[in-house]
């Protein structure tokens, strides 16, 4: 039933209902309620990234709005969105709302440099931020009370909220709005009789207005979206939009039509006013962003200290949710069941968004206690007890999903006292699951950056039409890297601007490329470098900051990666962005994006686009796991080949996603505008066929059951869409696919499904698994939000007791010459190998691997057939003799014989120096063979000890290192010296210098003392003769010397 069209409507109604019901509880300063809070540091980054992906001045409103639009149903409902009115006001913070239904407000976006500045929030910022900017959850409790009164008068009045600067962070301040909103909401909920979904006034699309009624959400769009809004009723409209209708999954075109609408019908004047105020507020507080952040971070160390327990209201402590206080249990059970069915069937727009919501419920802090108005309503989930009960029930039900979260999140969940008190069973399951989880949050950071190697096959003169093209490209390559280095060095400096600093050079380069017709060469270099630098999962970790040399030496690349993560944790404590962050260009990707924008060269773009497209289609054809292998995917220690396959898959997937993102970026770049295009332009563009036939690719992929590879990269591609994008057929097709996909997922392994579901979820308002957890997390970094939310909760609830939230394992920095020498040697070897293959064509690696594998396996075969087999026979004889004579402890006997054989084997090897390197291998082989032989003998003798005796079995995962093809030492041309020449003659330059000296004396001017003796001259002439005779020292350019001998 749920799946039919009506079902869809039901689902959206259900989701809205849940959010509405729980909003009171959520609205009350749960420390975990982070999603509402603007998270300036990271978030702004994200924002501007996103924005920056458009042309410099243009706004991305388009995309954000369209993204929102499609999914606004669920998203806009989410309580976070409503609760933080002021947050949205800032435009920046808007994205932080879990609803993601944000309007992007171009005007308020920080400039590039500001953003950088903003990102560099340091610990110090937290400490120094003015106290009043750091309301803790506890403070907010307090201010909530205060504001309640305020709200009573000002209900719904935006003014009162805005006038209260703190209201923005202070969850309590929303209260007033909510009170008023509530009654309004009811009005709104009963739709006007002439309901027209297409009417934008009736249904302001952007999630700006969710049902929420409960709190006025202030979406501000500084540029009027449309001049006339006859029916706009600012006060109500902007606070509440009937969400239900839109929420039905937008399958039809009608919905899409409305998609462009952004912002609320707030009057422009008012908006400006608000913006102005906001701006001045920010101006007064240069570091405003960090304090804001910190204000909601009870967990930052300094903060905990500052707050002490002083401000904790008793209320908070008394409000422990209790199982016994749960009301409406049967209703809640029913609701939970329905809700879970929706999630299981994937009827919700984004399962992680729902999971996030559930976690929010779980961590909600205080009930709207004693608020009569609230209590009156039929509220199943508006008490904290009910919220937690509901959340725990859902988590229990959805345990399969929950179990795939990362360890950290699982641990936090298991340790959550609410989970423990409401469902000990769930807690036990969580503890078990922790052991299995392999998902990591931050992949290691690679600090090794290479250039694209020069390959004569593709790069030498014969690959160019003429000398000019060849030499131009020579220069272009150097200019390109120069720009890259400069960017690495400087892009984090305040005031540095890409276009201003590099624009001239890049455009000059483009001109030269054009005149030489070298675009394809450059495009190839550009893309290779892009892949090299950005392919790795979040390799970008610390873009452009070359690691400090000393640190690197002290810690090694590994330790440095850990240090970076630590830094991240300290600098951006729990920046919770919610499970649906905007698309971004992290790390070095930013350079490539800015380069494309700045170059603004249509030929280059076309070449890039063609090449990307071609590569993607090729990648999409790459053979992936055989079906049988994929079924075993959960089996973590599947055999080596399967692991290899997985690795290969994830590398293909990551690469495809990167390429697709850039393809999307370039393809949609021409259509990026800050304003919504006119209808004619829109219609015209819809008729155009995008560079990539998404529908065909998808269709093909579905047929061949390869969506696991295709969908994730299509998602990246489409995430770069413009205004018109969502109107395109392909976008809708993919949307359909989502539904389709999930339905047929039954036969796909769970993690695969999870990845698809999550990437799609992300795109459509809104991640991928051959997929292990690690890959899932790489592709969907936003999954870490759960952990952050839970951690925020822990910190919030333990801060009062001075609880330490961050578990930071100290890393000791060892000095370079200490025992790590060995490890660093290994590391160095690894780097050397990597470096060697890097500059070789890929075929060499394959060849080397092949040769090494063959040589290895043949040696093993040989050894087994000769030496080892001999030893086994000997061992068996000993074994049988011993067994005959005495009742030995067989296990001991086994071991002693094994040791004996190993010794004998090694001894034998010692006699053959050429096999010196096989010691280890031989020992393993003997052990393994002996185990087999021993078992066989014991079995033959009918002994029960036959199995598992030889626990000493070693199965080394030793990788065979390819023995690089030895190059014969440079065989230079033969040197013919006179017989008996020992090449000890003086160097020509020495002879020349002496001669010059002598001549200059001879030619004068000179002093008598300088005159050489005849013997000296004779000796010099002898030396000159020797030097001339010895070919080795003389070598080339003999004629140069003639000058001396005129």
């Amino acid at each position, binding site marked *: 039933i749920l799946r039919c069209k009506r079902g869809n409507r039901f689902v959206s109604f259900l989701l809205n209902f849940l959010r509405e019901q729980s909003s009171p509880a959520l609205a009350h300063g749960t420390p975990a309620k982070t999603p509402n809070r603007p998270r300036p540091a990271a978030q702004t980054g994200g924002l501007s990234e996103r924005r920056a992906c458009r042309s410099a001045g243009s706004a991305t409103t388009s995309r954000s709005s369209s993204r929102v639009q499609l999914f606004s149903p669920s998203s806009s409902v989410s309580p976070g969105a409503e609760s933080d009115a002021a947050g949205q006001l800032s435009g920046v913070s808007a994205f932080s709302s879990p609803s993601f239904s944000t309007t992007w407000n171009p005007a308020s976006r920080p400039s590039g440099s500001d953003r950088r500045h903003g990102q560099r929030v340091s610990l110090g910022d937290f400490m120094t931020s003015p106290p009043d900017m750091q309301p803790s959850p506890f403070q907010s409790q307090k201010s909530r009370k205060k504001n309640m009164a305020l709200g009573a008068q000002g209900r719904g009045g935006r003014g009162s909220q805005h006038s209260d600067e703190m209201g923005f962070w202070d969850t309590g301040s929303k209260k007033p709005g909510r009170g008023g909103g509530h009654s309004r909401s009811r009005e709104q909920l009963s739709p006007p009789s002439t309901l027209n979904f297409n009417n934008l006034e009736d249904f302001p699309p952007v999630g700006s207005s969710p049902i929420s009624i409960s709190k006025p959400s202030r979406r501000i769009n500084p540029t009027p979206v449309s001049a006339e809004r006859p029916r706009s009723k600012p006060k109500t409209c902007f606070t509440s939009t009937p969400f239900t209708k839109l929420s039905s999954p937008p399958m039809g075109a009608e919905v899409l039509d409305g998609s462009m609408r952004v912002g609320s019908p707030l009057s422009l004047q008012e908006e400006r006013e608000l913006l102005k105020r906001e701006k001045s507020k920010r101006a007064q507080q240069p570091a405003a962003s960090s304090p804001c952040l910190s204000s909601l971070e009870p967990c930052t160390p300094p903060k905990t200290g500052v707050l002490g327990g002083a401000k904790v209201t008793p209320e908070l402590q008394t409000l422990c949710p209790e199982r016994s206080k749960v009301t409406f249990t049967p209703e809640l059970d029913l609701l939970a069941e329905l809700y879970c069915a929706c999630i299981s069937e994937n009827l919700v727009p984004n399962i992680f968004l729902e999971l996030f919501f559930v976690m929010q419920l779980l961590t909600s802090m205080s009930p709207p206690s004693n608020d009569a108005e609230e209590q009156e309503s039929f509220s199943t989930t508006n008490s904290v007890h009910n919220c937690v009960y509901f959340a725990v029930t859902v988590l229990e039900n959805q345990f399969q999903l929950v179990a795939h979260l990362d360890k950290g999140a699982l641990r936090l969940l298991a340790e959550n006292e609410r989970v423990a008190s409401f469902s000990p069973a769930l807690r036990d399951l969580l503890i078990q699951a922790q052991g299995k989880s392999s998902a990591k949050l931050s992949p290691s950071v690679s600090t090794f950056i290479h250039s694209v190697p020069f390959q004569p096959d593709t*790069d030498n003169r014969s690959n160019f039409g003429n000398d000019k093209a060849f030499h131009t490209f020579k220069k272009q390559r150097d200019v390109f890297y120069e720009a890259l280095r400069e960017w690495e060095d400087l892009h984090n400096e305040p005031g540095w601007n890409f276009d201003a600093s590099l624009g001239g050079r890049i455009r000059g380069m483009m001109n030269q490329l054009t005149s030489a017709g070298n675009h394809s060469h450059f495009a190839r270099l550009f893309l290779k470098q892009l892949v090299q630098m950005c392919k790795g999962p979040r390799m970008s970790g610390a873009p452009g900051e070359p690691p400090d040399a000393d640190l690197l030496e002290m810690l090694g690349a590994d330790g440095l990666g850990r240090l970076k993560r630590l830094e991240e944790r300290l600098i951006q404590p729990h920046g919770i962005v919610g499970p649906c962050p905007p698309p971004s260009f992290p790390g070095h990707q930013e350079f490539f994006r800015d380069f494309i924008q700045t170059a603004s060269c249509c030929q280059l773009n076309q070449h890039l686009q063609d090449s990307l497209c071609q590569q993607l289609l090729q990648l999409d054809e790459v053979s992936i796991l055989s079906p049988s292998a994929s079924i075993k995917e959960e089996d973590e220690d599947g055999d080596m080949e399967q692991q290899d396959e997985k690795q290969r898959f994830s590398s293909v997937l990551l690469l495809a996603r990167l390429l697709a993102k850039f393809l999307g970026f370039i393809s949609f770049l021409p259509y990026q505008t800050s304003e919504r295009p006119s209808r004619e332009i829109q219609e015209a563009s819809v008729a155009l066929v995008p560079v990539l036939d998404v529908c065909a690719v998808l269709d093909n992929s579905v047929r061949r059951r390869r969506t696991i590879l295709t969908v994730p990269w299509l998602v990246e591609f489409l995430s770069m869409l413009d205004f018109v994008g969502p109107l395109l057929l392909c976008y809708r097709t993919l949307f359909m696919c989502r539904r389709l996909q999930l339905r047929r997922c039954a036969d796909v392994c769970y993690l695969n499904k999870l990845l698809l579901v999550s990437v799609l979820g992300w795109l459509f308002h809104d991640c991928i698994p051959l997929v292990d957890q690690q890959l899932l997390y790489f592709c969907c970094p936003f999954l870490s939000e759960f952990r952050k939310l839970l951690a925020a909760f822990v910190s919030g609830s333990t801060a009062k007791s001075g609880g330490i939230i961050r578990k930071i394992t100290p890393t000791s920095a060892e000095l370079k010459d200490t025992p790590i020498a060995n490890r660093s040697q290994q590391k160095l070897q690894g*780097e050397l190998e990597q470096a060697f293959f890097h500059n070789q064509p890929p075929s060499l690696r394959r060849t080397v691997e092949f040769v090494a594998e063959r040589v290895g396996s043949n040696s093993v075969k040989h050894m087994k057939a000769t030496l080892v087999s001999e030893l086994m026979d000997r061992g068996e004889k000993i074994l049988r003799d011993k067994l005959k004579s005495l009742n030995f402890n067989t296990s001991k006997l086994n071991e002693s014989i094994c040791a004996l054989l190993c010794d004998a084997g090694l001894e034998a090897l010692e006699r053959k120096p050429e096999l010196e390197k096989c010691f280890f291998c031989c020992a393993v082989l003997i052990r393994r063979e002996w185990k087999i032989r021993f078992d066989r003998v014991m079995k033959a003798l009918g002994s029960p000890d036959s199995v598992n005796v030889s626990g000493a079995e070693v199965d080394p995962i030793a990788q065979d290192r390819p023995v690089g093809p030895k190059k014969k030492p440079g065989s230079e041309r033969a040197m013919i010296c006179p017989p008996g020449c020992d090449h000890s003659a003086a160097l020509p330059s020495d002879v020349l210098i002496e001669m010059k000296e002598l001549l200059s004396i001879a030619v004068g001017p000179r002093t008598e003392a300088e005159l050489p003796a005849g013997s000296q001259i004779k000796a010099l002439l002898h030396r000159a003769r020797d030097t001339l005779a010895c070919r080795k020292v003389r070598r080339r350019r003999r004629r140069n010397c003639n000058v001396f001998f005129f």
Partner: protein
Amino acid sequence: MRLSRAEYKDIVRATEQLRPTRQCMKILKDRFPNHSQSTLLSIFSLEYQKRTKRTISRHHAADVVESHYQRYLNEAKARPAAPVLLEMANEVDLSPALMGRLILDRFLQDVSGEMHSKAVLNSMLKEPSLIPDQVLANNIYQCTINDCCYGPLVDCIKHAIGQEHEVLLRDKLKERNLSFLDENKLRTMGYDKTPDIILEVPIAVEGHIVHWIESKASFGDDYSHRTYLNEQFWSYWNRFGPGLVIYWYGFIGELDCQRDRGILLKDCFPTDIVTLCHTSHQQSPEKEDND
């Protein structure tokens, strides 16, 4: 030899008033007995070239050339056996070899009109006996032979030194059994930028990966290093990854600051070399051949 910037500056200061003659070189040597003669000469030569670049234009002005020439003619007539031209060069602080060139050029204008070729001029500088005027020939020869910074002889020596060090480098590499491609080979393979050496299998020097080696038989000062970085070293990095530069006659220590970005400086062939080796890795018996 790796000099600190302060040491280097001391030497530079000491060269300021010197002329490029063997007498001056002796002064320098005596002043800095701890530095090798080639390092001192290389620093002096680089400094002197900078000085010349600054001042050469004023000697090239037609009226100046004319006045030099007339003065030479007068003095040579008065004292035909004296090193007139050499003294003149030292007096006006112009490299003797360049002074010789200037005067010879002017002389040839008189002899063969405007039409004499550069090749003729150069051959006469190399081979003064070709100069029709005996006195001028002697003077020119004195100039070129006494100049330790300019002139065909110095060019020849510099070239020889460069070659020798490349040979030395190749010998060292062979000694270490390291396989490499040299410049000539690279050029025939069509490389657009060619360091002296590309290692076919990279090595690690003092913990830094090295793919290529460039040999510089000169001292690495700020100016020349910057120029080399822009014109050569970064270009090599851009194509072959990190590498090693050997300034055989030393460099300013502070310039060796790009190690982590892939450019390592040394003043000799390195001793701390780690090669890709296989002894530490074992063969797994797992991959047994079953076919």
